[in-house]
């Protein structure tokens, strides 16, 4: 009797094991062409779209970027070694996630050093704000950057700032600096955003390259794009003001009604082109992602002006005719194909030689911008041979706004 009962219990145990083993969905293997190593992530994540045309799942798989246990079928085990949680582009883990010589930490000469540039960029280090505030309250003798949101170094500095030590509030004693550390460190690329949909963004590369507009709270987003809408920039910019008086952030209180009001907070004047376009239609990659050097101020890195596209009364804007099929402009256009850029096309370039690949000079000499996000085709004029009398040496936007501003 006892033996029979024992056998019965054993069978029940085996049947339970068989039943439990049959419960998970059938494993879905994927062998990405890039890695050649089979992974089973699609067993649960088969509904995720490709994150971008440049990163097809069939080519990259999941593990190359996200990490994780590629052969695990148990969720906890599979996710146990993922990098950055759901965001492998967080700057703390970006090198193993997005790096590699064929990916985003390749040679400077091939323009593949994105990670190094971003990590030394003013948007990542926040060194400008930290230095300015510490200098303003007499904590450091000059406004040259000493501290950053994290430690970073530049072994080939062109700015005289070879490294930044991490900003550590525990080592600060001035009350205003302490308040600054509590209230004003929400916008660098490693910082978690303030609560609220208007501030909603990821950290790291995804802060800009993963649009989060109208995202439901905690909704996962599997998108990367180089067509970054102004709304993504606005998760940090134009959201309000930091006050030196009380060292606090004061959110804007106006209600946006249309793109102009939505774009800029009501503190200034702007030309129509500024709010019709998206930020990335004019501002360049080195302005946003850094040029590889550590800078002490946003002003040191932001250099595009009205003249970059419109020229001055004496000079047309700089142009370049594409002759090399490997020109970076063609690659950038291929990544965001809003125009069919070809060898032989003439585009604008900045004074630092960065291609304005979405702005072409047509055969008749006219200029035409294509919105990188809106895809709008917008012809525009040079300043030369117009009634404009603006001094070529006074090209900051406020000079141009004196005649061309739209107020709101």
């Amino acid at each position: 009797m006892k033996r029979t009962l024992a056998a019965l219990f054993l069978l029940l145990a085996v049947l339970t094991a068989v039943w439990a083993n049959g419960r998970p969905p059938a494993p879905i293997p994927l062998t990405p062409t890039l890695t050649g190593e089979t992974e089973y992530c699609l067993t649960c994540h088969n509904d995720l779209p490709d994150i971008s045309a440049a990163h097809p799942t069939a080519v990259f798989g999941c593990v190359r970027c996200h990490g994780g246990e590629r052969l695990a079928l148990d969720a906890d085990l599979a996710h146990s070694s993922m990098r950055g949680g759901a965001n492998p582009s967080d700057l703390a883990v970006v090198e193993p996630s997005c790096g590699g010589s064929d990916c985003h930490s390749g040679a400077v000469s091939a323009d593949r050093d994105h990670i190094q540039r971003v990590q030394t960029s003013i948007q990542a280090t926040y060194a400008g704000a930290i230095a300015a505030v510490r200098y303003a309250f007499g904590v450091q003798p000059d406004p040259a950057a000493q501290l950053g949101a994290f430690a970073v170094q530049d072994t080939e500095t062109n700015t005289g700032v070879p490294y930044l030590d991490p900003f550590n509030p525990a080592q600060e004693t001035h009350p205003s600096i302490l308040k600054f550390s509590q209230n004003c460190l929400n916008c660098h690329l490693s910082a978690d955003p303030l609560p609220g949909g208007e501030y909603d963004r990821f950290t790291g590369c995804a802060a800009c390259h993963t649009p989060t507009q109208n995202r439901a709270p905690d909704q996962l987003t599997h998108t990367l794009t180089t067509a970054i809408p102004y709304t993504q920039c606005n998760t940090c910019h134009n959201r309000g003001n930091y006050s030196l008086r009380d060292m606090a952030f004061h959110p804007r209180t106006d209600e946006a009604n249309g793109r102009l009001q939505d774009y800029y907070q009501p503190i200034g004047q702007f030309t129509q082109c500024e709010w019709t376009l998206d930020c990335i239609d004019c501002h360049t990659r080195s302005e946003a992602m850094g040029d590889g050097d550590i800078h002490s101020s946003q002003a040191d890195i932001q250099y595009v002006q009205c003249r970059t596209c419109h020229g001055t009364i004496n000079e047309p804007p700089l142009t370049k005719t594409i002759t090399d099929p490997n020109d970076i402009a063609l690659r950038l256009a291929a990544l965001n194909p809003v125009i069919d850029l070809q060898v032989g096309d003439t585009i604008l370039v900045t004074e630092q030689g960065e291609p304005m690949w979405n702005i072409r000079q047509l055969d008749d000499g006219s200029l035409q911008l294509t919105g990188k996000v809106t895809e709008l085709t917008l012809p525009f004029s040079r300043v030369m041979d117009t009634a404009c009398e603006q001094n070529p040496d006074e090209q900051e936007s406020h000079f141009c706004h004196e005649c061309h501003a739209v107020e709101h």
Partner: protein
Amino acid sequence: MNVTPSSINPTPLSRRTFLELAGKGLLAVSGLLGLGGLSRFFSFQTETAVPQTFALGPAENYPPGSRTFISQAQAYILHTDEGITAVSAICPHLGCSVNLADNSFDCPCHGSRFALDGEKLQGPANRSLRDLSVEISADNQLTLLT
């Protein structure tokens, strides 16, 4: 023929015998299920084997001038003046699948372009598409070797 009553009406199983038989039966079923599970466990292939030979069917399916994409092989079969050739559709940059345009193969991922013979025209790929072998059998059947 004499038939004894006992051969017609076998002796009923005793309770002890029934329980012993039932126990053995349950053990046997458990053992078989366990063996099945073990067999499944040890025969599971974690890595997916990638085939390297593809039967393409009769050569007349690839007429002169044709450019045929073989999706399972990630390759294009080209019938040109030089005969039937094959070129890999996998971009040597990062492994995306190139698309056939009017006069080139274009990579949709990062913009590399290749001539119809696979030669690199434009980076970021730093080499050309890989040439593949096509064999024609005596009965005019094509086989692609990747």
